[in-house]
């Protein structure tokens, strides 16, 4: 059966801490009409990816920011935010490194 496209192709930037889930690719593409659909599509291509960006209640946890064209989606409509062809998503986790990992500075 021929696959049916359900939305616009969107480019997603993957930072290095998450890149192990995308075969070390820093930019991937997925289809969807909303941010949530794009993230779900990513999970189909890269099984396990959803475990990084969703909590147990299928919400994006607050230590991860998802940016649509440089604006965090909580400032838009969350994962219901509509996406358009050519939009760019970025999934950015909080980082704590600065000192050593066992004390004060990474």
């Amino acid at each position, binding site marked *: 059966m021929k696959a049916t496209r359900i939305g616009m192709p969107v480019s997603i930037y993957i930072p290095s801490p998450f890149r192990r889930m995308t075969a070390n690719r820093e930019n991937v593409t997925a289809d969807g009409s909303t941010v949530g659909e794009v993230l779900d599509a990513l999970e189909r291509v890269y099984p396990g990816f959803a475990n990084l960006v969703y909590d147990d209640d299928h919400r994006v946890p607050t230590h991860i920011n998802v940016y649509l064209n440089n604006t965090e989606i909580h*400032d838009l409509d969350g994962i219901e935010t509509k996406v358009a062809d050519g939009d760019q998503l970025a999934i950015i986790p909080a980082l*704590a490194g*600065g*000192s050593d990992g066992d004390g*004060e*500075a990474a």
Partner: protein
Amino acid sequence: MSNEVSRAPEALSPEEVMRYSRHIIMPQVGPQGQRKLRSASVLVIGAGGLGGPVALYLALAGVGKIGLVEFDTVDLSNLQRQVLHQTADIDRPKIVSAKETLEAYNPHVQVAMHHMPITSDNAMEIIADYDIVVNGADNFATRYLVNDACYLAGKTLVDGAILLFDGQATVYEPGKGCYRCLYPDPPPPGLVPSCAEAGVLGSITGIVGSIQATEVFKVILGQGKTLVNRLLLVDALTMEFRTMKLRRDPNCPLCGDHPTVTELIDYDAFCGSPPLEMPAATTTA
């Protein structure tokens, strides 16, 4: 609110004019800007990967007082990236080797040592003595603590973080957004690895630390457009820099319209992390 340093101290000595001539010759600095740098006091949290290059460039530039908060000792595994410490410093207190290195680079600067972990009990007292705070902490509990203390004390916070090949940097001015606006809650313990667990490219500390030092200079000099309301993302593997919008969240528990965090809290409990072991605390200049 701006923390731009506006004091106008006495004239520069001939030696200072020569030492800082490449700065003074720039119209954005000049003799007045150099005197602002000399009058400035900057607190650096951590004398490790990020704090090292930050403190180094602050010292080279003649920032008058540099405070260091650090309680750790130098480990062999630090020397891949931590520029203030050398092989002979292994097992010595980082804060001592950091002070020696900074003063060797520039004897004009005063290096104040806070040989202790920063905690809810001492943060406000330590921060009160400084114009600007720079964050080079390696754990989430300290990051939220420093964020809250800086907001409550009305201090500008120059923030930076690193992991693997990635870095992040921004500037928080009180009332224009804070770390809690960016990341309201810490990740569950163990979910985001530390540099010790996942690794970090040594030179990314230099990139992000230099960016943090640059932001400090801009704040002191009142020049340029700082990273306030912007999160800078550095990807060293692709060598691409991105900036994301960062806004004050009206619902932020610290700096929002109806704050619920009005004093420092138990950040180990907030982050679900075990408390740090406390060595004996000393503060010296």
